């Protein structure tokens, strides 16, 4: 049992921190990058590719680096810290994760190779309007005619869906179960819009749209989709952790520098104590994030699902607590779009609602409380 990074991991962290910080340490550049579609900086996407970050999760055969979940999590934390808008989580972890888990060797080499090289952006489209974090394919149906597949239905919201060159769409199969399909972005009717944190999502309307099955045609991929979603949740929690760390740091900086009534704010004990409570939330969330991240490589699919629920719940609660208190302890300045703290709170809200709300995870955990005695941290 070991909660520390090794030297290679530390080096990766420094490299990503350097690259992300160079781009977005000045918050105004983040604001500029998200002002218009596609909601991120294409040049920075290319730099991430050059550094090898976009291929981290994929095997060398697929054009990637073959790094483990700890490395991926660490990248997410660093990107979260500066609210980097590049779609690493949506495109690499989620959509790329689906391709890696379900694609044929050819599909993997093609899509993941180009993704790793920064040549394309992928998106995963698995949510139907009104849908709530389920792995079934409600809302889109697949039809087959000979070897030709088509999809019909609506997916909304699809993070980065309008910019994606290829979209990985889940759909109900004619013989039951859920399949995954590669759809050309240009073949879909897409409506782009901004979410409240400046990131982009889209509505995708499919109407007999040509689609290529990912992997073996007709195979039910529900469990694969569920596990990749769970991994994405855990990585989203890593990203949220980075956001919260930055918020706690910004808040303590502000309290020690901002003056009111002729003294710095850290003269006021009530504010300091609330900052202490933020730190407690942060550390507890951090622990579950590390644990869940390690579970990805060391646990079963059920363990990963359990870890995703646990970290999802904890990080959602911590995100509300820290995100709200960070604004409150700053006061008005943090209400503005010009300052990172409030936008961080917006980003935490978007991550939570995209990947799974607290009550969703709590309900799933509640259903299982009778299945065990105490929850054991060490297997």
């Amino acid at each position, binding site marked *: 049992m070991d909660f520390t990074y090794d030297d290679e991991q530390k080096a990766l962290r420094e490299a990503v921190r350097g690259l992300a910080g160079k781009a977005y340490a000045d918050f105004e550049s983040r604001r500029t990058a998200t002002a218009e579609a596609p909601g991120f900086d294409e040049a920075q996407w290319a730099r991430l590719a050059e550094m090898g970050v976009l291929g981290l999760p994929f095997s060398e055969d697929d054009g990637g680096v073959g790094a483990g979940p700890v490395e991926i999590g660490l990248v997410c934390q660093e990107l979260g810290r500066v609210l980097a808008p590049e779609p690493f989580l949506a495109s690499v972890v989620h959509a790329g994760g689906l391709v890696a888990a379900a694609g044929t060797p050819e599909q993997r080499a093609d899509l993941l190779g180009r993704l790793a090289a920064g040549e394309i952006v992928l998106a995963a489209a698995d*949510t139907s*309007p*009104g*849908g*709530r*974090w389920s792995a079934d394919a409600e809302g889109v149906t697949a039809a087959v005619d000979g070897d030709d597949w088509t999809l019909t239905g*609506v997916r*909304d*919201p699809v*993070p980065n869906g309008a910019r994606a060159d290829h979209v990985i769409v889940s759909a109900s199969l004619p013989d039951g179960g859920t399949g995954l399909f590669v759809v050309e972005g240009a073949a879909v009717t897409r*409506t782009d*819009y*901004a*979410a*409240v944190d400046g990131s982009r*999502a889209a*509505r995708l309307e499919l109407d007999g749209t040509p689609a290529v099955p990912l992997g073996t045609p007709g195979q039910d991929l529900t469990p694969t989709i569920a596990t990749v979603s769970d991994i994405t949740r855990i990585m989203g929690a890593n990203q949220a952790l980075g956001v919260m760390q930055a918020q706690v740091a910004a808040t303590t900086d502000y309290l020690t520098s901002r*003056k*009111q*009534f*002729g003294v710095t704010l850290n003269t*006021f004990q*009530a*504010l300091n104590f609330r900052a202490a409570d933020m730190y407690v939330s942060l550390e507890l969330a951090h622990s579950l994030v590390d644990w869940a991240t390690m579970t990805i490589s060391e646990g079963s699919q059920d363990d990963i699902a359990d870890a995703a629920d646990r970290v999802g719940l904890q990080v959602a609660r911590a995100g*509300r607590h820290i995100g*709200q208190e960070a*604004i*409150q302890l700053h*006061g*008005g300045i*943090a*209400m*503005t*779009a*010009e300052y990172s703290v*409030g*936008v961080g*709170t*917006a980003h935490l*809200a*978007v991550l939570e*609602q*995209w990947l799974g*709300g*607290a*009550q969703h995870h*709590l*309900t799933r955990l509640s259903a299982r409380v009778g299945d065990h005695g105490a929850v054991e941290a060490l297997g």
Partner: protein
Amino acid sequence: MQLKLSAEDAAFRDEMRTFFTTEFPQEIRDKVLAGQHLTHDEIVAGQRALNAAGLAVPHWPEEWGGKGWTDLQRHLWHEEMQRAGVPAPLAFNASMIGPVLAQFGSQEQKERFLPKTANLDIWWSQGFSEPDAGSDLASLRTTAVRDGDDWIVNGQKTWTTLGQYGDWIFTLVRTDPEVKKQAGISMLLIDMTLEGVEVRPIELIDGGHEVNEVWFDDVRVPGDLLVGEQGGGWTIAKFLLGNERVGVAPVGATKRALARLKEDAGDLLDDPLTRARVAELENELLALELTALRVVAHSAGGEPHPASSVLKLKGTELQQAVSELALDLAGPGSLASGADDDSPVPGWARRTAPTYLNLRKASIYGGSNEIQRQIIARTILGL
């Protein structure tokens, strides 16, 4: 002790309800009830409709359009407005500068401004906060220097809500830099079309533009626009902020928002955890509303009851909690805040994330909740 309204008060309530639901412009009410934002023109039209019926400024002195109502009647008026989706009269006009001018203004100022203020012919903005003077308002630095009969104003105000619509701004300025902080402050009325006044928008985290910076660069303000005595600005500000807290607890609106959310939620309301959250919020809102009624019953002579701080503190917390519940019920649909009305995600769900973020301001502006706790601790508990 008695719960029932007296026959007289019940009749009064019916009268209000009838007016609001049958005579007030329906299209404005519909928008409010659907949780949508009103335009400038709709806000103006709404207040004029109220003023025409004598219902815009009932708490002002009767000479200036007030009605001499009891506090309970005023509460019923306010509650029935909110129930019907009638937008309350613009607070800057009706609750802030109006009462201030009625109390501290010269006869000439009253005649010049009060009728137009009641009718929203003048849209007032508030020029109090500065970048380095928020909760610590007394450290404000905008200056007004005598030049003949006029004042020359320089400085910067911020968090000026709806300043983009403002015709005039009531402003706290430092007229004497030599004396102790509070004593050197005066209130000036400034025409926002004057040369040297500049309004710059501030984008908030919900993506909206409801607050502004207001810059004054050698703005020349005639001397007869100083309110009350020179150096009396702090007294006026305290009077105004006290007034502001009464009725600030957004009970009625929050109650309606929660009721509407239950309808919008559909089968999501079958979830026992959701039902429990709703029941808990409904109970707290009921307790808060009853507290407002108790405060009304005990407040004397227009002085704000110190328990007003309880209303502001708890009222904003509940308003925020309802917005969080809405966000949670919207789920992934809340990402579609920037989508247009063709979106298959319903409007209420699309509005949840901006509303959640926007309402974080409620515990900061208008006397932060920390200031309210301080008032409770000091004034009520003697700590």
